[in-house]
């Protein structure tokens, strides 16, 4: 649509905006690199970039052998190696450099094997058994709560039975890169900055150069004046999230080598109790989609602020204030009280935190029925946006 293109050209398809965007993309890239060089690669005991050549070599060799679908041979190899090192470090062992050790030190070998291979593989092997235990409890609960006529608990346990069944993660890959990708949120700040830069002058400029009155009073402009701006801002918000989503994936893939894209999300220990039965790559795409929706809603609210406050500086302060306050509200996503849940639900920034919400099953009781928190969050946000848009429409009509 031409009018959409013209609207985008006013504030977004401009040299200054592209200049800012490129600067922020570069800063994002440097930030990812800085993160990787100070705390990246392995986790916990070892930082890959600071590890010695021998440590890195041992780590790579083990991954080369063990990556992929686990079989009896791989599992027994890891168990035997673990037992061997465990017996070694349980007694008297030398803390001096030993060239026969893979890392150069007995405890180094033991630590690297245990933390990065034995423990994750043990987690994968024992997952099914523990999960089956949860499913048995869920089945028992369904029978129990059906007798007690407790609809909510029956629905909740049925949901668990439905979504947690048939889980048997047997693919082993390095998960550090995926954990970092799924929890990286610094690019959200840059998207917010770009949205604020583009949205602030949307209405104030046209009021200043008297174009607003011309547009509002024209037959075509009267209907589309605000809607087209909203559409343009939503378009830019979604586009920016997709851009940064791709950049983050490419950079982290170059740093960590994100292998095992088809590995299930619950193969990562932190996501052990996630209700989502999807692969890590699918979860990342879902996260990007959730953020697109979140940023679209944020763009709509920022547009409303710019519409209501025509003074550029006051609008700037109001947007920073809104961002700070609602970002703070979204920090209550692990809360359990009514007030904490309400604050989390009304904040669109909660949609940017799928990575945190998906680590476990968080539920809401709505009219006696079970709903997952995340679905309810989408519903609440959709309702709030519709109410805000209708309110704005009413104010506009009254103003005319």
């Amino acid at each position, binding site marked *: 649509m031409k009018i959409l293109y013209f609207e985008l050209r006013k504030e977004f398809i401009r040299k200054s905006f592209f200049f800012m965007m490129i600067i922020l993309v570069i800063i994002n890239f440097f930030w990812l690199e800085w993160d990787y060089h100070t705390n990246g690669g392995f986790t916990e005991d070892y930082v890959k970039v600071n590890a010695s050549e021998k440590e890195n070599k041992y780590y790579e060799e083990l991954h080369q052998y063990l990556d992929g679908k686990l079989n009896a041979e791989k599992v027994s190899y890891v168990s035997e190696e673990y037992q061997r090192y465990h017996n070694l470090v349980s007694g008297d062992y030398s803390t001096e450099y030993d060239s026969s050790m893979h890392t150069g030190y007995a405890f180094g070998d033991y630590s690297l094997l245990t933390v990065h291979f034995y423990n994750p593989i043990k987690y994968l092997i024992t997952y099914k058994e523990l999960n089956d235990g949860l499913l048995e409890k869920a089945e028992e609960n369904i029978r129990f709560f059906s007798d007690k006529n407790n609809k909510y608990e029956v629905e909740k346990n049925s949901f668990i039975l439905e979504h947690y069944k048939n889980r048997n993660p047997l693919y082993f890959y390095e998960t550090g890169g995926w954990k970092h990708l799924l929890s990286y949120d610094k690019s959200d700040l840059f998207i917010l900055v770009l949205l604020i830069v583009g949205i602030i002058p949307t209405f104030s400029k046209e009021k200043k150069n008297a174009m607003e009155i011309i547009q509002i009073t024209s037959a075509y402009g009267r209907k589309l004046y605000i809607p087209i701006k909203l559409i343009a801002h939503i378009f830019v918000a979604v586009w920016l999230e997709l851009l940064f989503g791709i950049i983050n994936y490419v950079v982290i893939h170059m740093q960590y080598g994100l292998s095992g894209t088809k590995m299930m999300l619950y193969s990562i220990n932190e996501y052990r109790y996630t209700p989502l039965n999807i692969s890590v790559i699918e979860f990342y795409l879902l996260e990007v989609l959730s953020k697109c929706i979140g940023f679209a809603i944020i763009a709509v609210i920022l547009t409303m602020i710019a519409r209501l406050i025509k003074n550029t500086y006051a609008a700037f*302060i109001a947007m920073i204030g809104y961002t700070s306050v609602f970002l703070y509200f979204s920090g209550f996503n692990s809360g359990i009280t009514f007030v904490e849940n309400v604050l989390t639900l009304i904040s669109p920034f909660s949609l940017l935190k799928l990575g945190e919400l998906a680590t476990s099953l968080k539920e809401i009781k709505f009219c006696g029925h079970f709903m997952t928190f995340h679905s309810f969050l989408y519903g609440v946000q959709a309702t709030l946006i519709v109410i805000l848009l209708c309110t704005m429409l009413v104010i506009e009509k009254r103003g005319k």
Partner: protein
Amino acid sequence: MIRSELYKVFIKQHLILFLFVFLFLNAAYHIVTGYDTTTVIRNSESYYTSFFDKYEGKITTEKTTQIKEEYKKLEKDTVNMLSNKLEKQAFESFYHVYLYESDSGSGYLTDTRGWESILCHDNINYLLAVFVVLLGVMLFSVEYENEMNIMIVSTCGRNRLTGCKIFIGIAGAIISASLFQIVHIMYLVSTIGLHHADYPLNTIEFYENSRYGISLGTALLFKFIVTILGCMLLVSFAMLMTVLLKRREICMVLAVLLVILPRMIFSNSSILYRIPWITPLLSANGFFWPDRYTHQIIDNQLKKVIVFQAIETKTMLIVLSMDIFLIVLSSYIVFGKFSNHRKSKYIKMTSKILPCLLICFCLTGCGEISEDKEVIIDGTLNAQINMTIGGNMYYIDQNENLVYCEDAKNNIIAITRNIIPLQQRITNIFVDAHYCYYLLEDDNSSNIIVRSVDLESFEDKLVYSAGSDNTEDFYGLRKDESNDADEILKNIATVNWFIVTDKVIYYQKNSAIYKCSKISGKQEIIAEAVSDDEVQYLKGVLHYTDAHGKKTSYNESAK
């Protein structure tokens, strides 16, 4: 001309209003966040300050003798009153300060909490930063947007006008930086006090290894001046970006990013203080921090690793000189650009290249007890691990972290039926005719959670929670202060017992009884120095035994 420029910015653009609002928010922020203190001192503030009132000043032989006598006196005191406990705890904290000052400190005793609040943190005052950015942008943006700049910068008045604007920007930055800092200082002076500014800097334990032999007052003055310098640099950059980019929205956002990005990226590192930039000047304190260490296992050995390297005097002077140079350079470029000096090819070139270079530097049981029914609880620890009511025994399986009920026929039913394991531990249960209440505790927090299970429908509901911690870190700008040892010990301590009534919950932790409102969530201490004896609740009155063995009661309706 200055007057008209001031009118343009402060009155027409309403900057004066922003100033008042921001100053008010700044004051509110300092009141809400308070000053540095530990949990122990907070609980025994009056005792703690009384020791300093008695022994403040240079440590002499006479004072040493008196302090040691006081120490012996309190050690021998065996009375188990809470007030005595608090006095002992306060003296222990005071004695720690005394030991530090006499061994490796300055030899002077004083309450340094006020000084610690202002000198031991490298937080940036973001309200001040945003205000200074607004000032810098407002000065030049208006003329560019209404294209008056072409008319105003005529041959006659252009130098004077530009000079006025730059002067107002710099002066405004100095005045606003001073005002914001004075608000903070005034708050500290009126609450905890900033006494003895002439004492050496190493009077504060944080600065034990500081290489600077300056006084506390000198350190504060240095911080004051460096923050002003930071604001001057920030306003210069804001003015520079406005004359170069001419778009106020982009300038405002970029200027704020210039402040927050280095902080997010470099965080606690000393690298931040080695670059001539705005952020280290606004933090200021890091310039005279001493070396800071942590311990890590490297090559299978426990080694001391430096996490913050003290800034050498030479480096500091170089950085500050470069900052002053940058202020002068940016003001010069602003002057040349806005005044439209044609012979300034050099200025035009540097004004394009320099910002790019500078930007590249930017390398963060609900049923309620009926009041008529008497409740008797054994007040000892772990007494509520199991309860027998109506022939049914309710108990906590501590391995599985679940609550079970065993009836008279030895049938066992699970009361709590969560599938996903709970993050907190179930430590106590309380059962009445209709509900089984269970209390959850977490070692990382002193907050409790009370939930109930309806014994008919087995519906699990939240009854009370003191609230969880907010996990938002604002992209690395907000750092969690780690708990002190007393806070950690308080978190680990377990609740002895709890009772749920119509509107409130009572529980005992350590030797204090707490009352929590189910409606407002407010929590208050209603009794201290309580023994572990039996507790009774009947008709709105809680009966308990104090530390002296005396039976005491608390009447809800009397409050």
